[in-house]
């Protein structure tokens, strides 16, 4: 809608093109105010992290964007359209994996495509590709109960990737992964953000992880939840993956975020 205006308007820099806009969203669960008047822009093709203490409403916000929950007030706008229900432009990676326990890995990964009516041979070919992408080749015919927590989480990730949605909503996708694999996945995620022109919305508890993978970090504070700060790490992004964790800007941002969150730590 106003994108052409923005493009022609005389402004200092290129206007950030938002893939998802959260506008004055509030959400009450009965008397509990989970979100209050929260507004946030998610730039297209970038990864935005939602960082905040437990129970501050990160999952709630993600589910509202997904169309799984209705906001009590405010709206979500994607490409000029207000979100009212789930749509093929968004894919969700669930905090608790949400795998079908009676289905093999390949059927689980292809399940999104199955629901969209993609023919079996076609969707299994696509699923196989993403199973390989997340490093699960050889487990196509295993069942979820035969996999470790980290492997299950990767099945959920592959399922979300295989529907080729423009916006990926990831709710703590690495929480069940051990430290070595976690670092590996963070690198893979950076790769993914660079190669696929998709918008990633990423919930995490880890400050280091948020700073490492994000183009933009939104810090949420609880009761009632609002965006307290938006940080855009930019300096170290092009210095090579190996050097990020030693970069002074990286360390400064981690410290800065810790300083603003420490008062909420128990």
């Amino acid at each position, binding site marked *: 809608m106003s994108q052409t205006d923005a493009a022609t308007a005389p402004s200092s820099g290129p206007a950030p093109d938002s893939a998802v806009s959260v506008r004055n969203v509030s959400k009450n669960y009965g008397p509990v105010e989970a979100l209050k008047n929260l507004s946030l822009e998610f730039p297209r093709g970038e990864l935005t992290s939602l960082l905040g203490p437990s129970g501050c409403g990160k999952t709630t916000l993600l*589910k509202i964007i*997904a*169309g*799984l929950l209705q906001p009590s007030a405010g709206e979500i706008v994607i490409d000029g359209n207000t979100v009212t229900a*789930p*749509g*093929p432009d*968004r*894919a*969700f990676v*669930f*905090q*608790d994996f*949400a795998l*079908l*326990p*009676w289905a093999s890995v390949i059927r689980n990964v292809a*399940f*999104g495509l*199955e*629901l*969209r009516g993609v023919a079996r041979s076609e969707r299994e070919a696509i699923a196989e590709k993403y199973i390989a992408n997340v490093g699960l080749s050889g487990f196509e015919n295993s*069942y*979820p*109960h035969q996999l470790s927590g980290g492997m299950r989480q990767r099945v959920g990730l592959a*399922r979300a990737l295989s*529907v080729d949605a423009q916006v990926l909503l990831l709710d703590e996708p690495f929480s069940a992964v051990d430290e070595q694999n976690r670092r590996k996945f963070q690198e893979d995620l950076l790769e993914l953000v660079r190669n696929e022109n998709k918008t990633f919305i990423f919930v995490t508890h880890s400050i280091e992880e948020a700073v490492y993978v994000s183009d933009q970090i939104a810090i949420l504070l609880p009761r009632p939840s609002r965006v307290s700060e938006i940080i855009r790490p930019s300096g170290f992004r092009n210095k090579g993956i190996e050097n990020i964790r030693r970069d002074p800007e990286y360390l400064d941002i981690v410290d800065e975020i810790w300083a603003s969150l420490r008062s909420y730590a128990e």
Partner: protein
Amino acid sequence: MTAFGYRLPAMSSLLVWGLLWEIIGQLHLTFFVPPLSQVIITLVEIIGTPAFLKALRETAIAFLSGVAASVLIGIPVGILMGKNRLIDEILLPWVNIFLSAPLTALVPVLMVLFGFGMTSIIITTTLFAIWIIILNSRAGVLQINRSLVEMARSFGASPLDAFFKIYVWAALPEILGGVRIGVIRAVKGVIIGQLLISIVGFGALFELYSSNFLMGHFWAVLLVLFGMAFAISEFLGYLERRVAYYAASR
């Protein structure tokens, strides 16, 4: 099961009980218990007779219709109750009442409402089987992981997709358990129906044999009935074990 280091075949306990039956029968303690061997000889004699086949057909039709009705109505109703609070509040008290009600006492009412024919027998069978199927399907749905349903919705599942691809499968272990118990209760229901409503099928045979003190015949028909119920229940038990791998990890 093993005894003295040997692996015993399945159901060997039945052999022991059969042997005990034979001994008691041979002792001629009571006319009520003829020897098992005599019962089996009688069984072989009557099993091909037109009267027996007619009874078998009548009973099978009533039983299968009753079970089909219980499954086709009971599972969707149970799933709906599990999904929808309002429907659940409305129906649950009735389901619980009927589950424990002395259904035999209701049979005369059914006869008034539906006559003395097959319909009443089928309804009696259904009434015996359906409540436990409803309750188990409901319990199966209640324990479904909510995020499976959200997951399906987020990938664009229609309500029908969700029903057939999520609810039915996630509740399947409980549903099968309910159907297995329901089928066993249906055997009871069909015989009670045949005895009380119109004297047809196996009910008629039981009536005929017991009033003429033909205990060998009586037990032979009972053995057939037991064998069929056992086979069906074993088959459903087998299906239950097939889904057990995910029942524990949902």
